[in-house]
């Protein structure tokens, strides 16, 4: 629903339009019959509608536009009149008789434009006359519209370079003078408006003033369009005069808007060449003016200009734009003591963007801006204002985006100092941004020094800042963060093994400060990074590495041992066990038997002392068996000790089926295909038999508890092991044993107490099919299988 005020306004506008149309109708009739006297009379009455004070600027503009359109017709009529011989001077005199001043001035402006066009008098005289006479209207809204009418009709008649109105008597100076004067008067009307009317309507008035702003700003646009306004004239006359007006009016709205206009309306080259004057105005503005926004807009424009053409760059250098802007910002911040930190940071952020655009090679400038920012922030502790924080993030992200290279940011001494002012949460956000930048650009961080600097920068993720752990943190977020650190660790790389080892040591130093929550994320990538280095060294000749080399496999393994040991503080024995086994395997490949043995010992200790969950034990034992099977570095004695223990663990698992499976897996520890020294058929058979006994026991247990026999799956699995070793030529595994096992399974399956297990049936069937298949193969294999009856 429309408010009452708005309804009233509609009504008044309607009445105004009706009055205007009625008079226009008579005016048209007069025009059609060439009746000048009536034409003037009705047009004056028509224009009287513009005397209303009841309309808001928007509505008034509607009425004005209608009058404006009608006046174009009158203007054409005046032109025809002069062509018919009527003296324009007489016409100019004649319209002055209109009774009311407002209609009279509109008519004067209209005739005046024809007057100028006729060139019977110098344009400057007519213009001067008109702009003076408009003083007669002191009502702000009416005055502003009248003057904008004057500006509009004179727009194409200003004596400009190359215009038909340029002559001995008329120069660009006159045109500029005219527009400046009109601008000054309009600004005064506009500023004065706020003091008129009751105080309670202040808000409404401010809104109306804001609507009217373009009428004032338009003059600046006109000035910018005058071709004769070259740099010289802009510098000497236009800018100082406009700024004088802006500063002296002491009005917040006007100052903010007009500064914006100046920046947008005049060309970039002019701004560059007059930076000092322009910037000099900022500290003189009212403290309430949002200087940072306007100043930011200026820098944004200049940045775009620099980006748009390479030819512009020398100009920037020549006028020392950076120094001037930097200086001006300092002054503004100094002058506006109450400026919130966010405002100051916004300014620095804009200046930084400018610098990155205009002087990408000047890292010292970038650092200077950051340094100035640090100065502003210092002594205030961590930032709490969220807007300021956001601005800082923008400020710190800008160099990363520009250079696409964290290395550059690492060279900025003030970069980490700015980060200090971020609260812990934001500090982490920034650290993630840094890591993402590295990922995205595949940045190679290749020296220990750089890594040191980098970890200093992202320490928010690496350890608990202020020694407190943030309980508030979401588990998911934490994982996300730590995973990104893990990825980062994988990215650190140097071609030089020595340097790479230094990098690894640096990372270790930092991640060890991360505490038990972080280590499970950060230790594994570091372990693998070190293992990769070991692999690289394996390819190298020992002699080349030299005596004093730090990065020898032995040293790295020592180091690895320490890292994994640190995980015991977490504790996370399952992870540590896996890592020990990985290391053991790497030591195996490096031919370091004692080292490999040591890692196994560590893994066994963990298994015995720390891993108590039965499921975890099963997983661990299979890992142990698998790794041990692949080891070839061990001599008989070491190997025996380790396999002995592994079989021992297997037999002691909690559940019978787990025991059974682990034990038959152990059979592989005694028979390794590609190692001639490890082919102990007897012990293989011992394992298998033991597995069978356990399977039997398991079967009986289920019989006892459920009153039926359990699944035969375990037997079929063992049968498959038999077949494997049979095929591999283990002499202990013979036809009779296999045959016996097949029969056992068949009987078990046929007994009516046995539980139905389709999976086991299928497994058995396919095992038999395999035997059948091998038999039919013929040749050596076929012969071997031949005696087995299925």
């Amino acid at each position, binding site marked *: 629903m429309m408010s009452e005020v708005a309804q009233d306004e509609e009504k008044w506008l309607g009445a105004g339009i009706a009055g205007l149309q009625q008079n226009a109708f008579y005016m048209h009739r007069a025009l059609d019959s060439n009746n000048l006297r009536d034409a003037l009379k009705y047009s004056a009455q028509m224009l009287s509608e513009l*005397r209303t004070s009841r309309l808001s600027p928007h509505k008034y503009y509607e009425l004005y536009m209608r009058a404006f359109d009608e006046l174009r017709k009158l203007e054409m009529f005046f032109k025809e009149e002069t062509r018919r011989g009527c003296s324009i001077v007489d016409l100019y005199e004649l319209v002055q008789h209109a009774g009311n001043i407002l209609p009279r001035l509109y008519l004067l402006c209209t005739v005046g434009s024809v007057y100028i066009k006729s060139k019977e008098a110098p344009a400057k005289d007519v213009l001067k006359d008109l702009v003076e006479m408009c003083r007669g209207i002191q009502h702000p809204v*009416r005055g502003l519209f009248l003057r904008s009418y004057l500006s509009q009709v004179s727009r194409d008649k200003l004596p400009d370079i190359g215009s038909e109105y340029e002559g001995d008597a008329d120069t660009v100076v006159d045109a500029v003078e005219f527009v400046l004067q009109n601008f000054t008067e309009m600004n005064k009307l506009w500023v004065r408006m706020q003091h008129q009317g009751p105080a309670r309507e202040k808000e409404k008035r401010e809104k109306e003033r804001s609507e009217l702003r373009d009428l004032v700003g*338009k003059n600046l646009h006109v000035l910018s369009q005058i071709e004769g306004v070259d740099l010289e004239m802009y510098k000497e006359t236009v800018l100082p005069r406009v700024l004088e007006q802006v500063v002296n009016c002491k009005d917040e709205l006007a100052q903010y808007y007009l500064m*914006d206009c100046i920046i947008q309306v005049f060309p970039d080259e002019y701004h560059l060449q007059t930076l000092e004057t322009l910037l000099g105005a900022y500290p003189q503005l009212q403290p309430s003016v949002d200087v940072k926004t306007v100043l930011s807009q200026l820098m944004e424009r200049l940045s775009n200009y620099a980006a748009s053409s390479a030819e512009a760059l020398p100009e920037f250098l020549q006028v020392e734009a950076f120094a001037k802007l930097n200086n001006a910002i300092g002054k503004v911040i100094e002058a506006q003591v109450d400026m919130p930190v966010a405002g100051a940071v916004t300014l620095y952020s804009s200046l930084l963007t400018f610098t990155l655009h205009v002087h990408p090679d000047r890292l010292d400038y970038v650092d200077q801006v950051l340094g100035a920012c640090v100065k502003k922030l210092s002594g205030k502790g961590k930032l709490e204002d969220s807007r300021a924080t956001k601005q800082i993030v923008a400020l710190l992200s800008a160099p990363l985006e520009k250079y696409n290279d964290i290395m550059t940011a690492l060279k900025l001494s003030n970069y980490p100092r700015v980060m200090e002012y971020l609260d812990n949460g934001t500090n982490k956000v920034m650290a993630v941004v840094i890591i993402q930048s590295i990922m995205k650009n595949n940045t190679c961080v290749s020296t220990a020094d750089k890594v040191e600097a980098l970890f200093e920068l992202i320490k928010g993720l690496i350890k608990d800042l202020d020694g407190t752990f943030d309980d508030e943190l979401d588990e998911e977020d934490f994982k996300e963060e730590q995973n990104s650190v893990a990825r980062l660790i994988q990215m650190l790389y140097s071609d030089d093994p020595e340097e790479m080892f230094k990098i690894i040591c640096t990372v270790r130093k930092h991640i060890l400060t991360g505490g038990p929550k972080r280590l499970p994320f950060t230790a594994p990538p570091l372990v693998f990074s070190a293992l990769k280095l070991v692999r690289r060294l394996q390819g190298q000749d020992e002699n080349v590495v030299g005596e004093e080399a730090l990065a020898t496999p032995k040293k790295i393994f020592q180091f690895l041992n320490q890292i994994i040991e640190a995980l015991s503080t977490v504790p996370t024995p399952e992870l540590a066990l896996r890592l020990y086994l990985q290391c053991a395997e790497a030591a195996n490949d490096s031919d370091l038997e004692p080292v490999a043995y040591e890692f196994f010992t560590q893994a066994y200790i963990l298994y015995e002392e720390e891993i108590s969950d039965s499921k975890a034990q099963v997983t661990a034992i299979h890992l142990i068996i698998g790794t041990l099977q692949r080891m070839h570095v061990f001599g008989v004695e070491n190997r025996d000790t380790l396999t002995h223990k592994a079989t021992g663990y297997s037999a002691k698992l909690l559940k019978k089926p787990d025991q059974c499976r682990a034990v038959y897996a152990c059979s592989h520890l005694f028979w390794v295909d590609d190692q001639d020294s490890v082919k102990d058929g007897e012990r293989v058979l011992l394992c298998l038999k033991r597995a069978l006994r356990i399977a039997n026991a398991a079967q009986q247990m289920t019989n006892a508890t459920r009153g039926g026999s359990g699944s035969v799956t375990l037997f079929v699995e063992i049968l498959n092991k038999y077949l494997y070793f049979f095929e591999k030529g283990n002499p202990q595994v013979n036809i009779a044993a296999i045959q016996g096992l097949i029969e056992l399974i068949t009987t078990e399956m046929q007994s009516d107490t046995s539980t139905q297990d389709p999976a086991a049936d299928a497994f058995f069937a396919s095992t038999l099919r395999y035997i059948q298949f091998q038999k039919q193969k013929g040749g050596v294999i076929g012969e071997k299988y031949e005696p087995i009856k299925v």
Partner: protein
Amino acid sequence: MSSRRRMLLKVIILGDSGVGKTSLMNQYVNRKFSNQYKATIGADFLTKEVQFEDRLFTLQIWDTAGQERFQSLGVAFYRGADCCVLAYDVNVMKSFDNLNNWREEFLIQAAPSDPENFPFVVLGNKIDVDGGNSRVVSEKKAKAWCASKGNIPYFETSAKEGFNVEAAFECIAKNALKNEPEEEIYLPDTIDVAGGGRQQRSSGCEC
């Protein structure tokens, strides 16, 4: 009266900031071009006399601010337009995407009686930039859009090089002329032959 009215053709140029509205108008009216960007504030017109089928017309070309914050007074000047020019920069996708908004906004605000047939002309400007290598809106795409909006005439222009500007405005003038003027036929309740009009209302002060 209608004859007088018909001598004046009102044209409005709309489009995003920086597409070259002011440049196009200056090129057409003054045959001048500047590389400098000077934002337009509010609305502003230039006039140009054009001859057409032996008759002389005044083209009143309204250039507007593409930046919203420089259009504080609203768009009352749309009223009575005979043709609306929609300009975009062939090198900036967003400026093309926005044509639809400009067109709709114009139709809502100017409220012509026959919106379906109101004459528009679309100009794809700055085709000179980078020898055409940086353009992102193809002629085909632009023409397809124009076709979908009731066969709007389409021109590719360069205000900088004056390319096609004259031809475009000729078409604009022609279409403006074709547009049936929307004269609000006004008939006073009683035709007062003596021409008294109404009493001056007493609102407003004495100025």
